[in-house]
Each structure stands twice: as structure tokens, then as C-alpha cells.
């Protein structure tokens, strides 16, 4: 039995059909063809599928699509606004915070949600907030620096 869902996804009103037991991740990727959100594990252990639902950071692989009825879902695809990159995206690029890049969508979504709650996090706070996002390529160094620098950008403290 398919469910009919209405939700705001990356700022756009969307309607779609999903199975009762379909995850939000599968609905995003396979039904809405929004493949920017990645699957690394499907069990909530890697953070590649990070999205926000009504502002709350979640693993899309652990949320049922049916649960987002009426909600506001934001993915990596909605971070750049009107073609302008978010400071996080810019810093990730400038500082080579991605190698293969498959973890990047999840890191960007998670980091954005951190900076919305805590505009001036310490290195340690960034590391602990992002501990649910796995990256096997970078050793995290350039990711952490990019997040700290983007935070400074957003506070208007750096150029």
C-alpha cells in the first residue's frame, strides 16, 4: 500500500508516493531522484545520509519517508541559495576538505546544523558534533579547519 506524502523539500513543495516501510533516504534518492544525499551504511552509523527535518539533524536512513508528512526537509542540494555557495561549501572547496567527496554532503548538512546552533564552536565541539560522520579519505583535519573557518566567515570575522 503506497502512502501519499506532502512535504517541503529543499524549499520546494513536493508530493510523492512511498511504501509504508520506505526510508526517507530511499524516497529522496529513488522516488524524488535527489541523489545528492548518499548512503554509506543504511544503519545510522556513517552520517553520509544526514539531512534536517524541521531543523533537526537526522540520518535519513533511519527515518521513514512517511514521517516527514508536512515537514520541512533540507538536504545538501538546498544549501547553496540561488546559485551562491554557503561559506561551508566555499571553505570545503578552498581548503580541499574533500577527496572522494562521498562523505561531503553529510558533513556539510551536519556542520551547517551545528553552526546554526553554535556559531562559535571550539575545535573540540566541532569534532564531537561531527563524530557521527565518517570520512575515510581526509583524516578530518581539513574538514575541521573548514568548518571552523566557515564559522568565522558567518560571524563576519574573516574574509
Amino acid at each position, binding site marked *: 500500500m503506497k502512502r501519499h506524502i506532502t512535504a517541503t523539500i529543499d524549499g520546494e513543495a513536493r508530493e510523492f508516493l512511498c*511504501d509504508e*516501510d520506505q526510508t526517507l533516504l530511499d524516497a529522496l*534518492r*529513488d522516488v524524488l*531522484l*535527489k*541523489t*545528492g*544525499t*548518499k*548512503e*554509506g*551504511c*543504511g*544503519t545510522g*552509523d*556513517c552520517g*553520509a545520509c544526514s539531512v534536517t527535518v524541521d531543523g533537526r539533524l537526522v540520518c535519513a536512513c533511519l527515518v521513514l519517508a512517511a514521517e516527514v508528512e508536512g515537514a520541512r526537509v533540507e*538536504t*545538501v*542540494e538546498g*544549501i*547553496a541559495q540561488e546559485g551562491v*555557495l554557503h561559506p561551508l*561549501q566555499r571553505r*570545503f*572547496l*578552498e*581548503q*580541499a576538505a*574533500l*577527496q*572522494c*567527496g*562521498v*562523505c*561531503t*554532503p553529510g558533513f*556539510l548538512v551536519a556542520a551547517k546544523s551545528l553552526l546554526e546552533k553554535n556559531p562559535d564552536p571550539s*575545535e*573540540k565541539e*566541532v*569534532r*564531537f558534533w*561531527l*563524530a*557521527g*560522520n*565518517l*570520512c*575515510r*579519505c*581526509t*583524516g*578530518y*583535519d*581539513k*574538514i*575541521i*579547519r573548514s568548518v571552523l573557518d566557515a564559522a568565522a566567515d558567518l560571524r563576519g570575522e574573516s574574509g
Partner: protein
Amino acid sequence: MSEEKKFRWVGTRPIRPDGIDKVTGRANYGADFALPDMLWGKVLRSPHAHARIQSIDLERAKALAGVHAVMTAEDLPDLFAEAAKSNGGHDGFNDLAHNVMARGRVLYHGHAIAAVAATSSAIASQALELIDVEYEPLPHVLDIASAIASDATLVHEDRVTQGVEGAGLSNVANRVQLGHGDPAEGFDLADEVIEREFTTRPVHQGYIEPHACLAQTTPDGRVTLWSSSQGHFMVRDYTAKLLDIDLSLVKVIPAEIGGGFGGKTTVYLEPLAVVLSRKSGRSVKMVMSREEVFRASGPTLGTRIKLKLGATSEGVFTAGEATLHYEGGAFGGSSVMAGCMTIFAPYAFPHVRSTGYDVMVNKPKGAAYRAPGAPMAAFALETVIDEMAERLEVDPVDLRLRNAAKEGTLASFGPRYRRVGCVETLEALRDHPHYSAPLGPHQGRGVAVGFWFNAGLQSSAGVNLNPDGTVTVLSGNPDIGGSRASLALMTAEEFGIEYERVEVVIADTQSIGYTDVTGGSRVTFATGMAVIEAAADVRRQLCERAAVVWEVDAERVVWEDGEARLKGESDQAPLTLAELAQNAGRTGGPISGRAALTARGVGMGFGAHICDVEVDPETGRVEVIRYTAVQDAGRAIHPSYVEGQMQGGAVQGIGWALNEEYVFDSDGKLENPGFLDYRIPVASDVPMIDTVIVEVPNPKHPYGVRGVGEVPIVAPIPAVVNAVYAATGVRFRDLPLSPPKVLAGLDGESAA
């Protein structure tokens, strides 16, 4: 290009060409492709570590609504039968064929046995449950000691040891030995001799993107594959070979790849997807679950190394001898050869010998993992050197420097070294402030050296000039870590044009010449060489075109600073790349260059790492508190991505040292096939990773490039273990140094 050449682009840090797509979610990885008629394929896997397949009944699965195709090994050509006619049957492809789908027997828990394609992934999963398989469980063998015992259960009933005259049936697939001199003589000359034994467990490459592909076939036999791999030509060649199809009929379109580390230099799903697509007449997408990735892809397996080192009281190594046993999984083919070749490689030894055994066990078929075989070998040698330094009461870096390999040193693996940067790397480490920084209580510092050969192999490149003066570069290597950026930088350098005017495209198997995998740290070195050559081809044409415009001999034209200039006194205004490109139609037609080569002159790579740890005496938890990686890159084309390789390799090695291990139960079933229980380092586990790039240019590369991708994972294990010794006074010789093991060691219980 002369040594003093001033670079304009090489060594700068621009944004990578594919960057925007990767921070906005637009980049398409293996699982991101879809076709309207697409089915979902799934694999049924063995619940036994070793069993005879008595029967497979597919009828109930086939009858399920939504199921369009079901397959077993019966649907694949029997390569063994063919190969047996010519060479006795055992070759890599025969093993690969048996790995992608079990035939007759299953050899490890998770071995593929059947596959289905259905209209949804849920139906495909349901269909797997309707496949009835009867197994006759067989005894299995899971570790080196039982596999090499004289009465061992055989993984294969018909294999003898390669490399041993008159060998009988055995689980040892291969024995190798190399070295020079006579170790016994060398040990006689030593004042101190230390002999130790080391063990490591299977670990997985742990790329975040699971294996994935999409196959489309046509009734006339054509195949198109979208696939994430370290080499789409490899996918084409292996798939065609396993299915006995002409290479010209198979087109592989490279997806972006979400990490490989050696684990994506082979195929698992692609041949199955093609068969399912042929049987169903629809396109078929297959994506491994994380559990399948752990159970049935990769890993690198367990090892046991016995190592003996002799040195004079002045700290000169007189002899080294090692016996290495590496598990190769169910088919052999471990990295033990590379282990033997690298184990003594960073140092000069008058007498050295390593003997390696490639051991078959009922575990997944091992795959390459970043500097295959070398990290375990370095674990053994570099911790014994640490112990030797302590015994001789010399500084561990000085001891290494005294024996370090240099130009002319007879390498333990055979030849004499050419110009290498082992000494310079160690000196940079010794001079780094980290090496002399103070330490607190429960803290310790360790150092270690890592070596890797790097690879050359075959590469093709195309350089097309567009009418507006921009340049499109074609490469045949998937870009895993920023190689588009390094190729674009080299192209901009060759033409003397802006980096932003160069676009790099990873071309499919029908659009560029053959190119070997992205592996062996070879892309910036080898494909870079091809790009430089293709650009030179274009530059030559540009000079010819300028000569046509100026009505002079082409010899009178030179290319300088992005424009063609007439040699000698002349009032001809130079012609820019853009001007020549715009008028190409008038001067002879479109301008494009190409190069295809087997890259020669590969530069071997050395790294040296410093690690500080703090060990919690209450819990046994080891925390890495400071880390510095030093490495000879030859020449860093894009230093950020060189640093990225060093930092990523360091953390991957830290994970291997401290946390990561496959845990099998007594039935051979992997107990931790997920990131929750197979714990790779997370951001809060590690500090910033400081980097120092040393540049001892490779004299055989136009820019001096050496490979950089693999070296960084070699030194971390011994650096961490030496640091733990410095902090605790306990020498650990069995990985990983998990808290319970460390705690037991601290309590004086058998640490070694």
C-alpha cells in the same frame, strides 16, 4: 624541463574542477544512476564458511511476482574448464570467476551463490529468501596456524604450493624468498640481535561508498555499465573476460568513486548485473549493503611475521631476516610478496632475507589495500628498530639515519636505489619541533618510517583545444583524491594559461585509450606524464599554426608564456593560444593532441611519522594527541591534496593500529560487519595531522613527481605502537591495541 624551472601553477592550491559538483550533491557516484526500465539486483550469500552446494532450487523465487531474472554460476562461462586445458586451471581470472559466484562449493561466509533481479529492491530481497539451497557443510580453516598444519583441512582440494619444488597439496598457495648475502653470517657480526613475532587481524579498506553499478544490455550483445571503481578499463576487461564477451562490445562509464584504497581494483557485481540484464531484457542496478561490503569485498587479511634484526654496537645493521605468513583469503593472492619486498626496504643491509607464505583460509578473497602488505611489515621492522635503539642507547631517528637507504644502496628487494628521499625525510622529521616537544605524564612518542614503490603502468591522455582558447583534457583514471586538479595544473603549466581555462574530463572506455587503474599512487605521476606529453603535442601544432600565419618555417617559432613567438629580431606580435585556437579552421583544422604510454621512471616514496599518545592507565584507552607526517613527494603538484593523502593515510593507519579488526566466530562468520562494531576513526578520535612535504624531485619525471597516495599508511602502525611503548613501557606485538588488550598489557599479562 630543467631543475631550476620556475613554476607558475605547479605547487599552487586552486579549487578542484569537480569541486562544485561535489559540494552541491550534483556529482554522480556509483549508486546515483537510474534508468526508466531499471530492475534491482541482489545477491544471495553463503551462510557457511565452507560447504558443498548440493542443490539450488530457484523455482519459488522465479515465481514471485516482480522477479524478472535469477542466476547462479551456471549462467557464467566455466573459466576453470577452459583454463584447465591450457595451464592446469589456476589463474587469477578463474579465481575471480569463482569469487563473483560460487561454483560447486562455497569457500567463505558471504560468498555469492545466486542473484535475482526484480522490480524493487524489496521484492528482490524477498526473492532471495525463496531460493532453496542445500548445503553439505565442510570443515573450515580460519587462521594461519591451522591452515599450515600438516593435517590441515584444505580450502582447495587440488592446489600445490607455487615456488616449492615437489610440494604436495597445501593451503599455502605460494612461497617466495628474496634477499642478498647470508643472514647467518650477518648475525655473527652483530653485537645485538633481537628476534620478535607479530600478528595482525583482517581489516577493511572502509571506503564510505559501497560497491554499485548499473548494467544495460541490448539483444545484439552490447553492454553498457555505469560503475564506481578505481578503473573503468579494469571493469570492462574483467567483466568481458568473466563473461567471454568482446571488449569492443562493453562500454564502461565511470561514476565518481567514493573511496577505494585498493578495494575497488576488482569486480564483484558487474558481471552479475550484466547476466541479470541479459536474462531479463531490462537494465539492472546493484548496490551492496554495508554488511555485504564487509563480508564479501576487500579486505586485507591477517598476518604473522617473525623478524630478526642484528646490529653492531655502533648501530650499523648487519643482518635482517623475516618470515612472513599472510592470509590471502579463500583463493590466496595475499600481499605477502609486497610484504617481503618492503619489509627491509628503507635501510641498507649487507645480509638480508625475507621468506613469504601466501596462506589460504576460509575468509573472503583479499583485495589490495593501500601499499598492500607494507604496513604489517613496517609494524614488525620499525618496532624492532625502536627496541634496538633502546638497547643500543641511541636516538631512534639517528639509528634509522645511520642505516637509511640512499642512491646506490642495494635494496633488500633486489636492485640498487636511484635518487630517493629517505634521508631527507628523516632529517626533516628530526628537525621538526614536534620531535623535541615536551611530553606529559602517561604520554609517549614514537617514530617510524614507511616505504612504498609506487607504480607506473599504462596511461592515455587527450588534450583538445576549444575555439575559445580553453582546453579540455581527457583522462582514463577515475578521480578519487583530486587528480583532476593536478592534471589541470600540469596542463596550465605546459601552456602557460590560466588554470581556470582547463577542464578535465574522465572519459569512458570508448572515448579514450586504455588506461590502467587509479592505484599504486600512479595517476599524478603516470597519467600526468601522458597529459604533459599530449600538451607538448598540442604546443608543437600551435607553433606550426603560427608558422602558417606568419609564413615562416615552423622551426622559427617557439612557445613561451602562453603564446607563440617568432625567434630572433621580429616585429610580429606574438599569437596567443586563444588567437590560434580561434583561427584553427583556417590554419589546418581543429587542434588536439594525444599521448599514450607505459610510464617509466617511477620514483619510490618514503615517509616518516611522529606520533604522541596518551594512555589512560584506568581504561587502557590510547589517545593520539599529536601527529606529524613527513613525506617525500618528489614534487607536490597540488600541495593540499598531497597533504590530504598524508593526513588520510595517517588516520587510516591509526585506526588499524588502535581499533580495527574483523572478528570471526568459530563458524567463520564475521561478527562485526558494520561501522558500529567495526570502528573506523571518527573526528573526535584524532588530532590535527601536521604535514611536512619534502621535495626530492624524481629525476625521471618532467616535474619531479613521485607517487604519494600509499606511503602514508605504512608508518602509522609502528609509530603508534612505539609511542604506546614510550608511554607505558609495554611492547605490544598483536594488533589492534584495543583498550582491553592495552589494559591487560599494563597489568603485566602476556602483552607480546
